[in-house]
């Protein structure tokens, strides 16, 4: 079993909102990091990480041109910016929250 590190050691993140959908662009710091996040950041793991803050499906798209993953989470903002009770109405910190997730490196 490999050493565990937080995603923040391998990648940067930016999140945004459209309605109740939160999306996180996860940008790997280099190609090796991209391979690790591509394999280990799965929809299931993302959903487990956010627990009941992400109620719907999670989809992950690959962007090899910029060594990034696009993570799209449905029903993820407590109803969307205008009606959520969360302090972070537009989920701008969802990306930061994801960076606390642990992955294995060799």
């Amino acid at each position, binding site marked *: 079993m490999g050493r565990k590190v937080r995603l923040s050691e391998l990648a940067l993140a930016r999140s*945004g909102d459209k309605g109740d959908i939160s999306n996180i662009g996860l*940008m790997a710091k280099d190609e090796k990091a991209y391979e690790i996040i591509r394999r280990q950041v799965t929809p299931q793991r993302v959903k487990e990480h956010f627990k009941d803050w992400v109620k719907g499906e999670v989809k992950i*798209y690959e962007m090899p*041109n910029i060594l990034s993953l696009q993570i*799209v989470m449905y029903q993820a903002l407590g109803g969307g910016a205008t009606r959520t*009770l969360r*302090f972070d109405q537009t989920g701008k910190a969802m990306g930061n*929250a994801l960076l606390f997730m642990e992955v294995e490196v060799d």
Partner: protein
Amino acid sequence: MKKVKIAGCSAGWPDMMDPAIEVAEKSDAKYLAFDHLAELTMAILERQKAKRPDRGYIPDVIPLMKKLLPIWKEKRFKMISNAGGANPEQCAEEIIKLAKNLGIIGFRIGIITGDDLPIERVKELRAKGIKFRNLDTGEPDIDRVINDLVAAYVYIGADRIIEALDQGADLVIGGRISDNSLFVGPWMYEFGWKYEDAYWDRIGAAVCTAHLLECGTWSCGTCSNFWEEVPEPWHSGAPICEMGEDGNSIITKVEGSGGLVRADTLKEHLVYEVHDPENYIMPDGIGDTTAIKLEDIGPNKVRISKLGNKPRGKPRPSTLKFCLAYLDGYISEYIMIVPGPKAYDMAKRCEEFFYKRLEIVGLKPVETLVSFIGYNALFGPTAPPIDYSPNELGVRFAIKTRTLEEAREARLQATLSWYAAGVGTAFGAPSEREVLALWPTLIPREEVPTKLEMREVK
């Protein structure tokens, strides 16, 4: 090869004004594009207009134009803006008044309308059989909220912008023109691109590139992961993009301005609020954000070019994004700060107090959320267990109710919860507010006839 420069001069409302002024004064950008709107902004503007028919546009546009128009007189750049919000006609009227006062003659304004639909029209279309399925929740039709609707607006494309420029507009002003189209429009006009097969690759490139510019200084290092490296963000430059007829481009900023333009800062924006990266759906075309390459070619200079042979775009969709806002009860909030030692335990006790009080007064909110600022207000359930002793913690109560009275009562019980701690400083938080929930859906393009009116300051 013909090349055209557009600067991204606004990210939303409110925003810093000086980056736009700086671009106008110091750059040779031919176009200044201003995006002022976000999903919620339109609903707020609609409500303002309902109360006062002479409101409903972005008020900042007046002080902004006051500074820009005298520079325009010398330099004759073109401006494209969606500051009209819910009331482009009135917005244009105010700008014309201002221009007259400033002695600006011959200034031509193209006013685009037709993006906001009267609620009656929405009901007519529903009766005709259009269901307006909710894209967020999948709810098949709008019937549940049709009587609570307060605003309905369509994200329109660049068609009328192109027409206005063709008729010599110096300023094109509209309402819910898509952020993206404020840039794609002028490039399509300048290069003579049509909504036809021969152009989708280049329109797609423009769609992807516009996405990098539509949040103004954000792509020059504001709100960035690289914030520690960004020099002087308080006077950040706005992005200036020179695109060629082949759809490839170079992004820079005004020499001497703050901020940072690097492939990294642009990547951050390329992933921002895009879902399927190969299908970034905009009214003027579908962009493929995986088909472009970003390269640093100098300090604060990034080249964007086609990557391999993959087409950068596909035909524009037959439907447009349509957002309906409806009344959905009330939210009240309260924030107080509890001190250490044992701030966390104290906060937990206040939370318990609040829920017990709700029971005692017999209040059943639709939804509640108690979070501790300094611990889990941003991170929610992802916050790891607290293993340190914070100096202080903010306790935030948020309550959603059906009625205004319930919202007030719930907030009162929240304010009392510091009784549980004995000490703690309370401070003001937003009072009760009406909730405008959004219903994102699609509408066939042909149901949204837009209109262009040309006016000239004489």
